[in-house]
């Protein structure tokens, strides 16, 4: 879009503003504070796929065409995730955070933006191997109910499993990864006992408030899609929702470099973006 004349850029901005406003008014999903380039790329993507000439046409379809809004919302939610994504993070978590958790009578974990649940299952496996699963409750939330439905099943494509096995082993897994799943020709089905104490719920970080006090908040590679203001706002939400000495885990490209938030945390494992809230 850089090559476009200024005039055209302003028009595009206006169109996107209008489109996002319409989406918000129609669905309640607020993308107005999302990272603008990303959103505009997602829109272009949809336009390319459906052969739509202008964003205004997208707007028209959003308003008038049944199902198009849902389609677009799905486009906007990017659900890229893996099991034991960034294995070193899980390794660090085992090493640095788990010892703290052993003394807790119960552990509440909020996995914000869990997408299709790969990391939720990873965490469940990790907790089970560390003997913490029974006293832990994982609240896995995402704004997209479709992906939550997928997550609840604990079924992942079989062709990802080779990569996941590698991740699991690098993450310091204690057993054979195959002990946790069964397969058919298409999918790997994770053991239903892993689902125990996992609560999947729809929650929108942009518009919804905190719903409990947590010992751990995981929100990995979600904030990158937000504008700085929104990131800051979500960070406030997190710091409010964390108990004292609670842990905040972010994605490897994310930080808490916000002026107001920094003093509330200390780094536990800087490279893995594990922070601890201080009193």
């Amino acid at each position, binding site marked *: 879009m850089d090559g476009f004349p200024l005039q055209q850029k302003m028009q595009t901005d206006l169109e996107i503003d209008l489109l996002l406003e319409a989406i918000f008014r129609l669905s309640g999903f607020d993308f107005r504070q999302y990272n603008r380039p*990303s959103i505009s790329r997602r829109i272009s993507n949809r336009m390319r796929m459906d052969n739509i000439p202008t964003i205004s046409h997208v707007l028209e379809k959003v308003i008038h065409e049944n199902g198009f809004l849902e389609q677009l919302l799905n486009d906007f939610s*990017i659900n890229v995730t893996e099991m034991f994504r960034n294995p070193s993070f899980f390794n660090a978590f085992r090493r640095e955070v788990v010892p703290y958790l052993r003394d807790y009578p119960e552990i509440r974990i909020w996995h914000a933006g869990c997408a299709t649940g790969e990391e939720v299952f990873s965490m469940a496996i990790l907790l089970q191997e560390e003997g913490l699963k029974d006293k832990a409750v994982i609240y896995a939330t995402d704004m997209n109910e479709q992906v939550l439905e997928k997550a609840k099943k604990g079924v992942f494509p*079989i062709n990802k499993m*080779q990569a996941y*096995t590698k991740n699991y082993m690098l993450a310091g897994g204690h057993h054979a990864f195959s002990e946790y799943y069964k*397969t058919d*020709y298409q999918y*790997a089905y994770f053991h239903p006992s892993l689902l125990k104490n996992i609560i999947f719920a729809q929650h929108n970080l942009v518009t919804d408030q905190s719903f409990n006090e947590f010992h751990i908040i995981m929100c990995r590679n979600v904030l990158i899609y937000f504008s*700085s203001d929104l990131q800051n706002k979500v960070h406030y939400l997190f710091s409010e929702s964390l108990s004292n000495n609670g842990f905040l885990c972010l994605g490897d490209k994310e930080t808490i*470099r916000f002026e107001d938030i920094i003093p509330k945390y200390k780094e536990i494992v800087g490279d893995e973006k594990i922070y601890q809230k201080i009193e």
Partner: protein
Amino acid sequence: MFNKLKVGIRRKITLGYIVIILCLLASVLILNNQIISLQKERNYIIKNNSHIHAVTNCIEKYILDMESSQRGFVITGEPSYLETYYEAGEKWRSDFNELYQLFENKPTQQQKLNEIKATIEHWITTSGEPSIEFKKENKAEAIWELYKVDVGRKDMETVRAQFESLRSEVNASMQAKVNDLDKRNSIVTHTLLGILVFISVVAIIIANGISRSIVKTLTQVTQTIQEIAASKSSQKGRIHVRTNDEINDLAVATNELLDILERREWLQLNIAEIVTKYQGICAITKLAETFLSEIAQKTQSSLGAFYVRETTDNNIQFVKKAAFADARDDVGIESFKLGQGLIGQCALEKKILIYNDIPEDFRLIGTSLGEVPPKSIFIVPIIFENDVIAVVELATMTGFNEQQQRLVKQVIETFGLTINSVLGRMEIVRLLNESRAMTEELQMQSEELQAQSEELQMQTEELTVINEQLEERTNEAELKTRELEQAKRELEESAEQLLLNSNYKSEFLANMSHELRTPLNSILILSEMLAENSQSNLSDEEAEFAKVIHSSGEDLLALINDILDLSKVEAGKLDISFDEMNMSEVPVQIEQTFAPVATKKNLQFHISKEKNVTDIFFTDEKRFKQILKNLLSNAFKFTEQGSVNLEIKQLGQEQLTNNMQDLSADWLEITVTDTGIGIPKDKHQLIFESFQQADGAIVRKYGGTGLGLSICKELARLLGGWISLQSEEGQGSTFTLTIPSLPNGIEEQKYLELAIHEVGATNEVHELEEEEQLSEVQEFSQHEVEVFQGKNILIVDDDYRNIYALKNALEKRGMDILVAKDGIECLDIMQSNGGIDLILMDIMMPNLDGYETMSIIRKQLNITDLPIIALTAKAMKNDRDKSLEAGASDYISKPLNLDQLISVLRVWLVSKGS
């Protein structure tokens, strides 16, 4: 304070002393007077007394003179004596008057004097004068006569006596006076003492009063100062002194000092407060808001605005960053330039401006109730390195006092630095955020790309699959109908054929056995009769031959019976009748049967039955005992020394699997343990098959048909149970019969389900087979076959049984199996055969173990993407780590679970792209 007369401490003390001195003076004066009057009185007494004495003496003398001169004249007639006489008569009178006057106030003494005077005059008239007259007239006789009587003499004596009495009286009165004086004297002494005491008391009172008045105020002051020191509130108390003295001065001075200190403290406190408030703020707007709100509160300002310099394209402009207003929020212009308006002027001149005369039309301060014009405005430039970097404007309704102004001035001195550092930090943060945003953008783009490619993949995948499936379906549909028909026909045919074959076989066996029995019967009877040798017409040798013929015939009969049983079982003709059986009798019966054998072979034989074994057990007693006898005779047969044990146990609920529970809740486990030759592991499976023994040598040594165990196995199956074996060569064997109590018999289809429990040579194989049996029941799906179809799997394991079990299971799923017994063989195969899709690698192997083999494959042969699945011992983290290090793609723990193995194979055989 001013209307009070100033009474200093010095004056107080002086006054005290003066009072004391005055008292002293007064007492001295009084005493002096007293003493003087006493002295005077004494002097008077002394003088008066002596005078009286003198005068009386004079009078006496004159009287005497008169007498003597009268006598002289009388005697001599010399007129000179008369002179003296008269002279004395004169003097006497004057002295007497004098004396009379001396006794002026004393009538008694005057009385006495008058008596004296009368006596004297009596003498004169009676003695003196007449004698003199007589002489002059020379009347000697008269004189004689006169002296003869001598009246004069008596008078004289009276006078003397009278004087004497007077004098003693005077003395007595003087003595009284002296006594009076003495009394007064002692009074003076007492008075002196009294005054002394009085003055002392007065002095003490004064000293006390003065010191108390001084000390009291001092104590008050000290107390107040202590209170002030102790008080924590910023508003300290003040020293109040009621007296007007130096202490008052001290108090006033101290109060002034306190005022100054308080003001200074207020200033410092507020500065500190403001500084603390804005400490740690990293955003300029927040900083400005905090600062402005603080400063406005401290100065009681009603309006305020905060402007920060922003330089854009050499254009200096001050932009509003914060506003403070009691009631409204749109205070102040948005921005201004240098020199623009008062505030611009202030920024230009870098000077603090205060305006108290505010024009009427200046912006009004709004409250919820109305609007009030501000009284004064205060514009302060905030300077950093000689540049104005921000400007604060404040307005108030009350006016800024000096203190507030000072506060503002002091606060902004350091605030410039803070603003500058915050601006700097914000700039750094902005740059940092930019770089972070770029990183995030990159991450996001890559994620999006991944998402997109995934999406595309999924879509193409979906489309292709749908197309393929559609095509296949049509083809399959046609093909299947044909195939199905054919298969059906074939199945029917083969079923018939099978049935026929089996029937033929069983019938043949049954017939043959029967046919064999008849001649055998005669042989047995006749040989027995011969062996008895009742007529003793046979030689010993011949009788012995007959015995051999008999016993061989019995063996043969037993064999035929076995064959008959087996054929019946296989033909399904063996009748099993489930009925009540008394378990308590079993040990006794078995004991009776086998005790002689044990004694003969010199073996120990123990039978134990657990107490919880129920007495009533439903099974086919005949077949049950047949199994037991078979197992026991085997045990005795293959045991040369040691013991044979029979143990009957009831299985607990927790030991029952679901399948078992479905069948019955009551299960027995009968174990026959011996210390015999044992069975090598690879023969475990074999010995249960018909006509099989461990090896030829055994047959040669121990004999037997090898049918016993296979019949036991079949019988156990028919009773709803199974037999399993644990044995090690040379250590003995343990056969375990597990059977249910079945009051209602067993349904035909249950046999199939139970079949999975059938004997396995080892746990692994056992489990694999179990899974296999289950899997056989299911139909492999089309896709299943596709994933595994034609895949070359290399199994590297030194345990033949494992290989055998794995091979069976995997070949059923369409995989082609290659086998290597150790690492070296594995590497050989790898080099000669390039088409291997996956390796199952055992770790513990002779020659070249799994770790080394994998390392060589990965590093020397440089084959990195071939999946190698390590088969590791369970719960050995070390094993896993080592195998991963060596290059295993995944690992799976022994004993192998077939389902898990198949899952893992699917994962690693499925192509990543599909």
